[in-house]
């Protein structure tokens, strides 16, 4: 492999890995904050113990999210230096704003929260977890705004051989950024909801701490249900904006080869990029793609053949990741709706509980496939329409990158294994037993 593809591999490894931990941080911080709020307002000790239990899992997950985030920032400079020089004026600023506005808050107050049980007043302590929750989500906003600018650059001008800022407001308020933000955090909230529901279900099957886990399950389930519904409705807006901003991505994710009007969606389909057609096409829903993409059943949708081969994104990964993500999205609605209907007597439905336990990994898959579509589908561009990924890579040697890729894979595999082992261990262990003493001490 050359420096370009090794750097791609390295960035993919670092990003996929980082994003195994980020969504749970975004969602679980809110859920823990909700539990602690209920505790502070009602004094129900189950909620305090629940906040501490989920908080422990939150911190194990958070630690790895934090340390792997630095890698991403530094990699723009180490592996994508031409990109960095080209877009630093805009992209670098968004990252720097993220650090000063949000990341400091999040990192500082997560420690205050952890070390502050019993040291701060209950209200001050509660404020800390809300600060963490809000700051993490603000942090996501700035990072996703930066990514949205790579997907759909606005508010810039080409000057001095690089993209220079002309309108920060346009960058921050562009529709692409807003949609990308709500879609990503929506997915993260589903993931956190399923996480809480799945682990609660596991304990309910074993009759551990029934009151505490029923309360947890209910909060997690409400969260997962609301955002599963939201994600389906809102996700449609993301497809629609692709029609206007990245038509090649839209064609790749649908594996549409020929430009046409009144284009259907094939429920069963398999792309064949070499022969520029689909090997399988069946169960077509007429005109659906035109309708979904452009609100007009007869709208024209551009096919991949309209783009030269070197201007098309890789079709199979874009297509598959989109299908998996959307399929899972619908499954999440069905699962959460079913569980919601059964919520009062859910302990009597061991089959459903078991299903909820086994569904826990699925939102992780949905989040990863969503990013695969976003990033692979943008290729060959690193900044859509103005810079190709192949022009962005650093002038460094293959051996350097080769060694660091191997290093990343080894270190991350090890850390990931340890982290998931600890998450499992402490998830199974359950909360600290309720004792009058610990309640009196406010711990």
């Amino acid at each position, binding site marked *: 492999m050359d420096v370009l593809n090794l750097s791609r591999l390295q960035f993919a490894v670092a990003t996929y890995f980082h994003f195994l931990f980020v969504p749970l941080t975004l969602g679980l911080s809110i859920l823990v904050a909700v539990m602690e709020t209920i505790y502070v307002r009602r004094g129900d000790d189950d909620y305090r113990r629940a906040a*501490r239990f989920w908080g422990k899992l939150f*911190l*194990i997950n958070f*630690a*790895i999210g*934090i*340390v*792997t985030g*630095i*890698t991403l*920032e*530094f990699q*723009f*400079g*180490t*592996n994508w*230096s*031409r990109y*960095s*020089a080209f*877009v*630093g*004026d*805009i*992209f*670098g*600023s968004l*990252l*720097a*704003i993220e*650090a*000063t*506005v949000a*990341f*400091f*808050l999040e*990192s*500082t107050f997560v*420690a*205050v929260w*952890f*070390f502050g*049980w*019993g040291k701060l007043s209950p209200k001050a302590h509660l404020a800390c977890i809300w600060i963490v929750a809000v700051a993490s989500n603000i942090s996501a906003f700035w990072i996703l705004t930066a990514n949205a600018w790579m997907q759909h650059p606005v508010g810039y001008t080409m000057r001095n051989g690089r993209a*220079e*800022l*002309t309108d*920060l407001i346009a960058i921050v308020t562009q529709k692409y950024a807003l949609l990308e933000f709500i879609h990503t955090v929506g997915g993260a909230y589903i993931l956190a909801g399923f996480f809480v529901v799945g682990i609660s279900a596991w304990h309910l099957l074993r009759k551990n701490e029934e009151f505490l886990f029923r309360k947890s399950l209910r909060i997690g389930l409400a969260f997962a249900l609301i955002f599963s519904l939201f994600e389906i409705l809102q996700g449609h807006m993301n497809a629609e904006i692709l029609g206007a901003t990245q038509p090649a991505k839209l064609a790749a994710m649908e594996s549409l080869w020929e430009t046409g009007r009144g284009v259907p969606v094939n429920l069963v389909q398999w792309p064949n990029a070499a022969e520029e057609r689909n090997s399988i096409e069946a169960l077509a829903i007429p005109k659906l793609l035109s309708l979904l993409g452009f609100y007009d059943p007869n709208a024209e949708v551009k096919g991949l053949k309209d783009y030269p081969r070197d201007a098309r994104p890789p079709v199979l990964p874009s297509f598959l990741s989109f299908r998996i993500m959307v399929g899972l999205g619908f499954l999440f609605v069905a699962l959460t709706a079913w569980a919601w209907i059964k919520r009062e007597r859910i302990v009597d439905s061991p089959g459903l509980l078991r299903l909820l336990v086994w569904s826990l990994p699925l939102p992780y898959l949905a989040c990863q496939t969503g990013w695969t579509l976003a990033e692979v589908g943008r290729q060959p561009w690193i900044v859509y329409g103005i810079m190709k990924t192949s022009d962005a890579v*650093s*002038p*460094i040697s293959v051996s*350097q*990158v080769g060694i*660091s890729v191997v290093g990343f894979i080894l*270190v991350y595999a090890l850390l990931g294994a*340890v982290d998931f082992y*600890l998450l499992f*261990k*402490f998830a199974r262990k359950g909360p600290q037993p309720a004792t009058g003493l610990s309640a009196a001490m406010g*711990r």
Partner: protein
Amino acid sequence: MLSTIWFVLWGVLWAVYFMLDGFDLGLGILKPFLAKTEQEHKVALNAMGPFWNGNEVWLITAGGVTFAAFPGTYAVMFSALYTPLMLLLFALILRGISYEFRGKEDAGWWRKTWDLCHFAGSFVAALLLGVAFANIFAGIPIDGDGIFQGNLLTLLNPYGLAGGVFFVLMFSVHGGLWLANKSQGKLRERTAKAIKVLWGLLLIVAVAFLSFTWFATSLWRNVLTRPLTLLLPILAVSGLLATRVFVARSNWWKAWFSSSVTIVGSTLFGVAGLYPALLPSSLNPGFSRTAFNTQSSPLTLKIMLGVALVMVPIVILYQAWVYRRFSEPVTVESLVTEDLY
């Protein structure tokens, strides 16, 4: 003017990062030698517990500001220093994760493993930051296109290594002083003894490094052309001497603040001596990356200045509150009654 302001801010951010994470890294280096019992390991870890994470964000901000304000420097600096930066990242990852992982299992081998990772991560990070900055002070072989014409061994030159040793010792003293503030009893006595020895070594290395700097870099000559900036090395040396005075009086907080003055003064001396270069080229001064040939557009610099002037003081305020709130020593009782690392 804007470029100069950003150059100063850039230097200040690095200085604050070294001042704050410096004590975590230094204490990480000292911990295996000072902590004899499991309890003492925990005291040392929890002495940094509420702070290390927030401290590390200063590094992210310093990196982010390099990216935002001087993208032309960011691109060249980070790709030229590719291998040391990757090692720095791995070191910081292992260091950071050790806090969280170490106490999660009781087995001896588990704790020893994360103790080793914590030590190695802290040591390697301190060393590499020193090597990297010494090389930046001296200049590295970058050509007119910003391409690095060297390899890892180019960076491991005597001056670079001297910088590494200087950073390791400076941070160790700083971390030792932090532990002296945050511990009690035997651990504090042992720490106090170690600080005295380390301070002596630091003094020797500091004098050697500052003299070496005269021959290996143009920092002194640049600073001499702007006499006001001569205050910075004077400040650093005064801080170093004051540290020893306060150590002798067992006034650990004042000693720690003096040590902070040393770190900030040394960093800013280096930065002032570089001005206007952020990354000098050792091949040809014309190839150097400076505040005036790699800066962002005036609009970006203005907006970011607004953000920095509003946000950085706020960050300092709430971090200072956290430092005050958690300033008391970590007691043996608190290890039992509280949920700590």
